[in-house]
């Protein structure tokens, strides 16, 4: 198995007095897709933000290609090749779609490459090409999400951190997005860390999965194994969901709590 490019060790992150991540360790190996599952408020977003440097951990280390990057300014981390596609469509609302995409390639110099990437993004999301001179703030929710993903792709990263990329996308597009991610992983050997509520799609794509609850990692294993786990099936894949109405207040206790 390949060497871990990203090693997270005992990370603790706080929002003021609130501890959002309580000692998380995980590894991301070159060319692998790692998926993180977890309920609301488990700390998935916080973990991603800590890796990309927009939050500083109070304890622990993050090693990327043998170098400690925790606490660095976010832009230096991007320069090292980690790109974070955040949750909630953080686009530049008053700039056009095209300008947004150009900024995605801010760290790159090669003009021809940038244009090729732009065309690639347009081919993934034709609607963006159609709207390339529209201000990003006036795009529909899903269009903004496409733009956020497209913009992340423009950066040609070594590792992509994807925080709920399928949020607000139509079922058709969700399939397409996962198709694109799979191709990126398989053809370009792109390493990814993926947070998704659509757990089945995520685990299908991923090589390895982690489950987070209240700031901790409570379970991890190869994606295929996780998919077999009863807890995962119940809580993330919704297998038992055909239950009748009377079932709803009765919730099976998660075994790891």
């Amino acid at each position, binding site marked *: 198995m390949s060497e871990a490019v990203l090693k997270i060790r005992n990370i603790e992150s*706080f*929002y*003021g*007095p609130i501890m959002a991540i309580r000692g998380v360790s995980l590894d991301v190996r070159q060319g692998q897709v790692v998926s993180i599952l977890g309920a609301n408020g488990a700390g998935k977003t916080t973990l991603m933000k800590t890796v990309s440097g927009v*939050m*500083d951990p*109070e304890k622990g280390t993050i090693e990327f290609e043998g170098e400690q990057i925790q606490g660095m300014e976010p832009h230096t981390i991007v320069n090292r090749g980690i790109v974070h596609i955040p949750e909630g469509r953080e686009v530049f*609302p*008053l700039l056009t779609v095209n300008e947004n995409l150009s900024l995605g390639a801010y760290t790159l110099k090669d003009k021809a490459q940038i244009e090729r990437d732009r065309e690639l993004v347009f081919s993934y999301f034709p609607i963006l090409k159609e709207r390339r001179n529209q201000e990003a*703030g006036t795009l529909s929710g899903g269009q903004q999400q496409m733009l956020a993903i497209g913009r992340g792709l423009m950066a040609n990263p070594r590792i992509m951190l994807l925080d709920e990329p399928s949020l607000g996308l139509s079922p058709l597009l969700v399939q397409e997005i996962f198709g694109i991610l799979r191709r990126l992983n398989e053809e370009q050997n792109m390493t990814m860390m993926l947070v998704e509520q659509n757990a089945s799609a995520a685990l299908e794509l991923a090589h390895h999965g982690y489950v987070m609850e209240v700031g901790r990692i409570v379970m991890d294993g190869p994606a295929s194994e996780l998919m077999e786990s009863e807890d995962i099936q119940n809580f993330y894949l919704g297998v038992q969901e055909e239950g009748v109405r009377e079932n709803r207040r009765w919730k099976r206790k998660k075994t790891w709590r």
Partner: protein
Amino acid sequence: MRIVFKTDYMQDIRPWKDGFQLSLYMLLLALAVVAPFLLDTFYIGELTNVLIWAIAGLGLMVLTGHTGQASLGHAAFLAFGCYANIILIEQGIPFLIAFPVAGILTGIVGAVIAIPALRLHGVYLAIFTLALSILTDDLIVLSEPLTGGVAGKYAPPVGVFGLQIDRWGTPDLFYWLTLAVVVLVTLGYINLLRTPLGRSFIAVRDSEVSAQAMGVDIARTKTVSFGVSCMVTGWAGALMGLYAVAFNNETFSVVISIQLLMMIVIGGLGSIHGAFFGAVVIGFLPQFLSISKEYVGAVFGGGSVAIPGLEFGIFGMILILFILFEPMGIYGRWLKIRTYFELFPFYRKDMFKRQKSYLKTERLR
């Protein structure tokens, strides 16, 4: 660590958390009431000054802190309240009627001015009100028959329940008068915040779209907020006029508008405490610096002007430090200190270390 158990909705609705907190505030009030017996004339004068600024701060806080409408023109409303009060008194109307009416008139004027200002946001509103403040100076001169123009007006002693109150003659009485206004305004403010109107202010501040979706009429809410804010500011102006005794068009300058805004930001936007904390800083810090030059004569050059303007310079630097230290205002810091004690002994060293934070554009409305 104090934990409050809640058993009744009133516990959340009433303004204090528990008996302990209530007794603290009562103690503070009691101290304020007996202050004239503890302090000399000078400090009573300064305390009065701070309280008057606090009233003005409360007025601006309604608009800027709670409704999110930045105003750099509140000196205009101070002026209006001041002149209205004195003109009414000169017409033979007793102070106890003239004073409230002066505030209400100011409030009405404020609400009327709000109408063209309704569509303005942020800097645009700030500069709109700033222009109003600048124009007030000229309006006072132009309406000379009413205002006495550049010669200004004098505040006579005012009669309250048979007592003649005047700033210099009876500083203690004047202090109590001011304190009474402060207490009443603060109580009204507290009530406002726990009822629908106050919440609609906050709603408008945080998100105009969703406020509308919840049935809050933006235009009306802003107008009312302007009205309430200006009314309180008008009262502060009336007291300021009585405090200054003599005033003219130059008294309520733009600088005062700017200082008012500084005051509530440094105190802590969006909190009643903030108005008071800010008033102490803006109202008393310069005086404190002036007093301290007696003790650090070497730096200030004793009574001479070794370094002219040093007090204002230091004042500016201290304000900078205040903001750098606590951008959320003194009230923000106060909350942290309180949390610290409430969590005692479960605090961490880095608990209040500032996390990286990021801004988004405010150009989207």
